């Protein structure tokens, strides 16, 4: 599974409230029309120039600065194997803000699983939540996975993160056939 699993998106997120236009994949494309502070946005592949804004957004959401981690993640997921690694950002229409991002990749045969798409990072600016940004990001990476030939998308969520789980469930995701186990090492 994803080597850098994480989930952000963890403060004040609720189910998105508007439906945005469908798109097959990014670089994108459709404009949101919800009455958000930043009403219009588009979703596209992350670029080098986005890194500082992504780090700032993650810092705002999680409260933890991790520049080196993000630089490494960006290098691996935004610049390599674009057919199976996906790093999308939602950018405001005026191109001044990054409103959210989603990261995932196709992994095969781990845990006995056929190839599937793993979403291991998703975050939306708290100021624009409930306006379809997360939904649009998930639609985009879903389309990218589908276009890459896989038919299943998975993620991993903390039991305690009911809001993030609500978001994924609102997008049609259900419990899968795997159960995560762990132990403390002596």
């Amino acid at each position, binding site marked *: 599974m994803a080597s850098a699993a994480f989930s952000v998106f963890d403060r004040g997120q609720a*189910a998105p409230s508007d439906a945005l236009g469908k798109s097959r994949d990014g670089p994108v494309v459709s404009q949101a029309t919800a009455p958000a502070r930043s009403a219009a946005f588009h979703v596209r592949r992350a670029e080098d120039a986005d890194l500082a804004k992504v780090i700032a957004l993650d810092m705002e959401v999680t409260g933890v600065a991790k520049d080196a981690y993000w630089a490494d993640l960006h290098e691996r997921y935004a610049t390599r194997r674009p057919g199976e690694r996906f790093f999308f950002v939602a950018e405001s229409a005026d191109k001044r803000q990054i409103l959210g991002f989603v990261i995932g990749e196709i992994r095969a045969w781990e845990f006995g699983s056929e190839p599937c798409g793993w979403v291991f990072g998703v975050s939306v600016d708290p100021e624009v939540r409930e306006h379809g940004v997360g939904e649009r990001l998930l639609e985009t990476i879903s389309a990218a996975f589908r276009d890459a030939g896989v038919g299943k998308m998975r993620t991993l969520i903390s039991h305690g993160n009911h809001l993030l789980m609500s978001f994924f469930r609102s997008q049609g995701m259900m419990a899968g056939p795997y159960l995560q186990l762990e132990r403390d090492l002596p």
Partner: protein
Amino acid sequence: MKLQIASRLAVFAVLELAAHPDRQISAAEIADKYGVSTHHLAKVMHTLGRAGLVRSVRGAGGGYQFSGNAKRTTLIDIIQLFERVGDVENASGEPGEDTSAGGALRQILDEIDDITRATLSSVTVSTLLKLIDRRGSAGPSDVGVGATPYS
């Protein structure tokens, strides 16, 4: 996991009403659809009303309307009005709970309870309505189809 009948009825009633926010639906219609007594459902509706999830509209053509937020109201919000869900306190006082075996058993049962709570806390009314639509079976969306489906 099995829900108590009052919880099941409450979930069904909320789904029926939330699926038709522009209609008032009588308790008799809902009771008829799910094969329960109107009297039993009335008590459930009363509890839902006190919780602010439904409101009654009096007069001709009156009935109930969903008054919660479908994108925020989760299954646990409804079910916990009628029963405790995965509540550790519920198990206190059980024989052998202070033994090491009792503790080990409690740890395993807590795992199950955690998953139950997480699941019920993350499924909203809105998500359930989408699931019903996807399943394409007879659900709330078929309430009221036709002129007088319930007598």
